[in-house]
C-alpha cells in the first residue's frame, strides 16, 4: 500500500501532468507560428491560375469558418479537448476533411515496422557485440571491430544513407529507389518479401549508426564493469567466462541500456524523417514535417500527442520496472 501511495501513484500523476502540459504546449506552438493553414491551402488551390480578389476574400473567410479557425483561441482549445476525450483528433486542414486518425493510421504502421525492427536489431547487436568486445578487449577481433565502429559512428547519417543509395540503388540497382512494398497488403510470403525488399536499405541505413552507438556504449560500460573486484574474483575462482559476462557483467551494465531501449521505443512515434525522405519511404515523419510546413495544426497535435504519450509511458515503465532489472534499486 505504501509502495502504491509513495512510489507508483506519484509517477502516474506525473505521467498525466506531462501529457497535459505537452498537449497544451503543442496546441499553442503552431498557432503562434506565422504559418496560417488556410493561406497555405488557398495558395495551393489558386496556384497556376488567377482569381478575382473579391472571390478570394470570400473563399478565405468561408475556409476559416469551415476549419473552425474563426473561433477564439480558448474556444478552439476547449473544442480540441472535447474531441480528444472521445478519441477524435479532428480533420486535417491540408487534406480536409480527412480525419487525422486516418492519416496517422495510414502512415504509422510503416514507421513502427521500420523503427521497431531497427531498434531491436541495433540494440541487440550493439549490446551483444559491445559487451563481448569490452570483456575481450585484448582480442584482435575486438580491436578491429572497435576501430571500424569508431570510424563509422561519427559519419553523419546522411552520408551513410547516400553511400548505400549510390552503391545498392543507383549503381548495382539491387534495391528500389522508393516506396514501402509492392502489391496488395496480405499475409503472404509474396507480399512480405516485397516488404523486406523495399524496407531493407532504409533499415540498414538506420541499423548501422544505431548499432555503432550502442556498441560504444556497451563496450564502455563493460570495460568499467570488468575492472570491478567481483569480476576479478570470479575469474580467479575460475567461474566460466560465459557465466561471468552474461550473468554478472551484462546484468550490471543493463540499467542504462534498458533505459536507452525504452526511450528509443517511445520515440518511434516521432518517425524517421530523414530516412523517409532519402529513401522515399512511407511513414509518420514526413506526415509530421508536411504538417508543420503547412500549419496543419490537428495533424501536428495528433502525432505529437502520440509521441508525448509514447515517451512519457516509456519513462513511467522504466521507473516502475527498474527494481526488477536491478535489485539495488529499492524504495527507501
Amino acid at each position, binding site marked *: 500500500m505504501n509502495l502504491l501511495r509513495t512510489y507508483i501513484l506519484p509517477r502516474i500523476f506525473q505521467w498525466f501532468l506531462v501529457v497535459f502540459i505537452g498537449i497544451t504546449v503543442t496546441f499553442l506552438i503552431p498557432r503562434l507560428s*506565422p*504559418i*496560417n493553414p488556410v*493561406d*497555405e491551402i488557398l*495558395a*495551393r*488551390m*489558386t*496556384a*497556376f*491560375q*488567377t*482569381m*478575382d*480578389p*473579391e*472571390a*478570394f*476574400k*470570400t*473563399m*478565405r473567410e*468561408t*475556409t476559416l469558418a*469551415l476549419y473552425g479557425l474563426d473561433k477564439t483561441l480558448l474556444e478552439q482549445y476547449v473544442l480540441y479537448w472535447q474531441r480528444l476525450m472521445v478519441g477524435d483528433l479532428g480533420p486535417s486542414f*491540408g*487534406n*480536409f476533411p*480527412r480525419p487525422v486518425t486516418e492519416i496517422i493510421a*495510414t502512415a504509422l504502421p510503416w514507421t513502427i515496422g521500420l523503427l521497431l525492427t531497427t531498434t531491436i536489431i541495433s540494440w541487440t547487436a550493439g549490446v551483444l557485440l559491445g559487451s563481448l568486445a569490452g570483456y575481450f578487449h585484448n*582480442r584482435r*577481433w575486438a580491436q578491429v*571491430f572497435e576501430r571500424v565502429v569508431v570510424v563509422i559512428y561519427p559519419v553523419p547519417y546522411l552520408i551513410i544513407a547516400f553511400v548505400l543509395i549510390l552503391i545498392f*540503388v*543507383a549503381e548495382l*540497382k*539491387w*534495391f*528500389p*529507389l*522508393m*516506396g*514501402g512494398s*509492392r502489391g496488395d497488403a496480405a499475409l503472404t510470403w509474396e507480399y512480405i*518479401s*516485397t516488404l*523486406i*525488399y*523495399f524496407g*531493407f*536499405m532504409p533499415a540498414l541505413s538506420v541499423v548501422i549508426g544505431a548499432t555503432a552507438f550502442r556498441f560504444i556504449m556497451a563496450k564502455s560500460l563493460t570495460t568499467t564493469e570488468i575492472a570491478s573486484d567481483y569480476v576479478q574474483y570470479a575469474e580467479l575462482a575460475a567461474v566460466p567466462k560465459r557465466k561471468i559476462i552474461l550473468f554478472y557483467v551484462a546484468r550490471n551494465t543493463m540499467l542504462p541500456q534498458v533505459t536507452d531501449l525504452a526511450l528509443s521505443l517511445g520515440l518511434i512515434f516521432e518517425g524517421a524523417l530523414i530516412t523517409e*525522405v*532519402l529513401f*522515399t519511404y*512511407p511513414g509518420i515523419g*514526413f506526415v509530421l514535417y508536411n504538417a508543420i*510546413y*503547412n*500549419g496543419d495544426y490537428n495533424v501536428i497535435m495528433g502525432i505529437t500527442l502520440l509521441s508525448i504519450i509514447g515517451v512519457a509511458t516509456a519513462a513511467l515503465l522504466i521507473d516502475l520496472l527498474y527494481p526488477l532489472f536491478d535489485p539495488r534499486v529499492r524504495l527507501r
Partner: protein
Amino acid sequence: MVRKVVLLLLLALLTVPTLVGLAQEPQGLPVEVPGGRENLWVFDRIYRLPTEANWNIWKSGIHTAFFHALMHETFWNRDQETGAFIHALAAGDPVYNDDFTEMSVDLRQGVLWSDGEEFNADDVVYTINALRNSYPGGTQSGWSVQLDEFGAEVEKTGDYSVKFTLSRSNPRFHTLFESRWNGIYMMPSHVVAEVEANLAEGESLSDWFWDAEDMVVLGNYLPIDWDENGYWQLFQRREDPENSLAGVITGGSGPPYALGIWYGNENIKKAIAMSRGELDVYFDVDIESFETTLDTTPTARSWFTAFPWAYPNEVSSRAMSFNLEGDPLVANKDVRWALALAINIVELQTEYIGGIAKVTPINIPPTPKLQELYHEPLEQWLIDLQIDLGDGEMYNPYDPTVPDQIAAWAEDYGHTVPGAPRDVFGSGWWKFDTDAAEKLLMKAGLSRDGGGNWLTPDGEIWSLDIQSDPSENDAYRMGQAAADMWAEFGIDVNFITLDRSTWTQNHRVGAFEVSTPWQSFALASGDMWPNVRGYHSKYYAPSGEDYNPLGGDSLRRQQETVLDELIDAMESVNPVAQEEENLALAHEFVKHWTENMMDITTIAFKKFVTWDEKYWTGFPTAENPNYQPLYWFMGGKFAIQNLTPTS
C-alpha cells in the same frame, strides 16, 4: 565461441543484403500491370499528396496535381507554347452580347463519357447549378464564389448549346472555363444527379466521396490503384480512347496505363529513377541532375537535343521584388535603378543559370506568342527609354545586344545556338554599368566610405536583405547572383534562405526588403488584367499587415494611381474582340512599371522536361512542337495522347 558469433554476425551483415536483393526482380516500381513495362508510361508527379481516394474534384480542398488533366475537361484550353485557344468541349469561341452580360457557347458533339453517354448541354446546366447550390463547403478554386459573384445563370438553348446570363457585365467570364492549369470541369449529370438525389438529409455534394470504381470521365484515363501514403497513382486508359476529348482532338490513344510517381524533392533521385528505366518523363531538375541524366540514360532528351536543352516557354518569369515599405532607400526609384544597373545579366544568365533561360526586362516571359505581343512592340520604347542620373544627365539603360552576348558565350563553350539569339535567349536587358549605378545612388544621397562600402544618408553602412526559397532553383540562383554582384558593388547584402511557407508568409505581411518571387503580368493569351487586378490600391495592406484577408496582391506595398486607372480601364475591355485596345492598355502598364523599376525582372521560366525514349516516343520537341510538353498542365494531355511505343 565468441569469435564464431562475431564472424556469423559479420557474415550476415554482408550476405543478407545480397541475398535479399538478388531474390527480387531487380526493379523498384511499386506496381505491375498486364503487358509489363511496355504498357506502362511512368511520369513524375509534382507533389506527394496523401489524399488519394476521394475523386470529387469539385470539392474545396481536393488536390488536383495532375490527375485533372488525365480525367477532366472544360470548354477551352490555352496552349502555352503557341498561345493558341484550343476548343475543347466548346465547338467554337464564346459569343458575348454587346454589354457582356450574356455568353453563348456551342458544345462539341461526339465526345463520350467513359460509360458511353454523350456529353451535352444537360451536363453544363447541371454542373453550374450544382457548383452554385450544392457545395456549401465551397468548391475547387473558388468556382462557386466566382459564379455567384456574377450571378451566373445558365440555360440550355439546344442539345449542344448553352447560354449564360450574368447579373453584371464581364467580358472575361469565359476565362472560368479556359484552362491553363484548370477550369470549371464538367460533371456527368446522369451520374452526379443520382448521387445528389440519394444523399442523406443534411448532406450536400461537399460530403460526397467519389470512389474510383464509380468514376465516369470525359478524359482518357481512370484511376485504378493508388498509394495511401501519396507516392503514386495508377491510371488505366478507358476502353474507348477515341471517344475521349483528347482522343477526338488528336486521334491518338495514349499508353494503356499511366503511373504518376513521386520520387521526392531531390533532383538527383529523378535522374537515378530514369537511369533505372523507372521514369519516362520528369518535369524539372537542376542542370547538374539533368547532366547526370544525359550521362546515365542514353535514350533521354529534353526539348532541344543539345544546348540549351530545356523547354523555355512556361508562362512565368523571375524577379527581384522590392517591399517599398521595407528598406526606406529602395522606396526611391533611383536606388532601384541603381541596383538593376549593378547586375551583370549576361553573367547571371550564364554563370549562375547555365545559359538555359530566356532573358526579359519586363514581367512577361518571351514565349513566342508573348514576345510578339509585348517584347517586339516595346523594343523601340525600351531602346529610347531614358533615366535621369542626376544633374540633368539623361541615360539610356537598355542594351538590346544581351542575347548576342549570351550566344557568343555559348559558342565560346562549343555550343551551337539553335536559332536566332533573340528567339533562344530572349530580349535585351539593362546595361551592366556600375558608374551609372553609382551616380544614381549619389543622387539618392548615399555615399561611399574609404573601403568602397555604400553608406546611407545617415552615414551608416547600407545593409540590404534578400530572401529566397531554394525550392525554385533558378529564382534562388538569381538571388544569389544579385547578392554577389551587389556585394561586389559595395553593398552589405544578407542573403537569407527560407522554406517556402515562411517565405510566402513574409511576403504576405511585408517582412522582407528584397525577395525573389515569380510571376507573369500576362496570361499565355496575352491578356493582362486577370494577373494584375490584385495590384489595385484598394487591396493595399501596409507592411506589417497581412494582405491575404483583403484578397489582392500587395506584395510590394505599392499604391500607384496610374496603375489603378489602367487596371480599371482593362477590366471593361474584351480581350478577344478588343485585343488592340486591351494590349495598348497593357503596354502602358508595363511601361509605367518598368520606368519605375518596381521589380528587377531577369529571366523567364525554363523547365527541364526530360523524357526517356526507351519505352515511349512521340513527346513534343523543338523540332516537332505539336503540343506543349508541360504535361502537368491541362494542355499537356494532348502530348500524352500522342505517345506511341518505341518498339
